[in-house]
């Protein structure tokens, strides 16, 4: 489903965020990418749906080349790729339902999208997505009134509403407290297991990575330094990925909030 081949990303500021990265992801996999902040995890995720343009190398998603895709092709790729953000990125001034419905925008004509002309099907799909994350009773509440965990569940529902083949989650629980983090990670894992949607998750916290991942990829300073099933990972490997001694900050459940 995903093929990265010798991908390099150099930002205009000069930062070399991804260095000769090669990676393959199969259909239905649940992949967790771990690493320190700035290791290149967010960049990698964003090369997959073209939000960040690879400076060199090939990025193939659904067997299509993202780096050279036309505007329309890119839209189609994105429409089939759901993304979940650390900062939720909901449209705060409107209802939860509307937020989830925006997930349908990739498959609607600009005219209908602009004037919110959702079809009955769109609405049904959105409602089902909300039920999938157990938050359908909040459908008509204004998004800004929800707690962090609730907002992220809406974010997941929005991604689901796209009926995607791939879901990318960029540090989805970094802004949430430990208990809520686990609840949200449960939903993300459930979607992968029940609906078979390929999922790539960036995580900063090791205990979460150990508990949810099937396969772990470790990134350090723009390079992939580890790639293997979770059962093979040792604490020494983690230390290498993080480039030194592990601290309290690298574990989710020791957080005070």
């Amino acid at each position, binding site marked *: 489903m995903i093929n990265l081949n010798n991908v390099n990303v150099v930002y205009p500021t000069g930062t070399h965020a991804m260095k000769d990265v090669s990676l393959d992801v199969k259909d239905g996999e649940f992949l967790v990418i771990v690493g320190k902040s700035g290791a290149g995890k967010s960049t990698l995720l964003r090369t997959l*749906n073209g*939000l960040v343009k690879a400076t060199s190398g090939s990025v193939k998603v659904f067997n299509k080349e993202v780096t050279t895709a036309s505007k329309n092709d*890119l*839209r*189609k*790729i*994105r*429409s*089939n*790729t*759901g*993304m979940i*953000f650390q*900062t*939720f*990125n*909901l*449209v*705060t*001034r*409107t209802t939860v339902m509307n937020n989830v419905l*925006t*997930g349908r*925008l*990739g*498959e609607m004509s*600009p005219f209908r*999208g*602009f004037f919110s002309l959702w079809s009955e099907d769109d609405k049904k799909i959105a409602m089902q997505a909300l039920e999938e994350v157990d938050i359908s009773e909040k459908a008509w509440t204004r998004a800004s009134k929800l707690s962090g965990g609730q907002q992220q569940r809406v*974010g997941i529902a*929005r991604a689901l509403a*796209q009926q995607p083949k791939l879901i990318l989650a960029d540090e989805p629980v970094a802004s949430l407290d430990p208990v809520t983090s686990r609840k949200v990670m449960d939903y993300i894992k459930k979607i992968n297991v029940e609906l078979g949607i390929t999922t790539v998750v960036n995580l900063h916290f090791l205990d979460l990575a150990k508990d949810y991942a099937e396969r772990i990829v470790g990134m350090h300073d723009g390079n992939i330094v580890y790639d293997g099933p979770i059962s093979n990972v040792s604490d020494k490997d983690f230390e290498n990925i993080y480039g030194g001694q592990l601290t309290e900050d690298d574990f989710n459940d020791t957080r005070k909030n």
Partner: protein
Amino acid sequence: MNQSRTIKIFKYSIYILLSVIVIWSSNNLSITWDRFINSFPQIAKILTLMFPPDLSSEMLTRVFIKLEETIWIAWVGTIIGIVFSIPFGYFASSNLFPSFIWGPFKTISVIIRAIPELIIAYILIPVTGLGALTGTLAIGIGTIGTFGKWQSELTEEIEYGQREALMAVGASSIVETRWAVIPQILPSLLSFYIYRFEINIRASAILGLIGAGGIGAELLGQFFYRDYPKAGTVVLITVIVVIIIDQISSKIRNKIIEGQ
């Protein structure tokens, strides 16, 4: 220590500069201290002649009719400003478009904004004649500049995350704007529209002074005929009406910022 000395030198040179300007200007404009001091009592005298104002029903009717026209000019002018400024502000946003697009639009907005409405009306008079239409067009054009610049500034301050999410969903750029940009700027923008309406009422009152419709001409006429009480009426009623409208629009603006 050195820093406070430089500040002191800076301060003193500013004072010297200011004094030079004052002396040079007053010389050029032939202003003496005498003339200056005496002007204030002279002005006060005229102000006192304006009260008590002429509150006859004949005068009051005249004033209200002209005030109504003034408000209509401001309203239609503001609407024209809103309608035409939306594309302007859109294309002038530096975070939405490359510089060869937003550059010209922003520049045009800034230039239009810089030209006072009075001048715009002045230039329009030979084209559209004296009267309310000219005033409306002048206010409309001036308002386009203001709204365009304001809208682009609001757009440039929004958080990127919501836009990123819309892009990630596969929405085309106009749809992305509608869902990520517009909800974020709408309350501020609407509030500004209403605020500008208040200002435009004052502006259209003034435009009357050069014949572009509205109450200004009435005021000028009364002064011309030295009928100060009548002039006082014009001022009094105008001030009252403007204050009332200000209050109403403040309430509406607060409701917008809270709720929607």
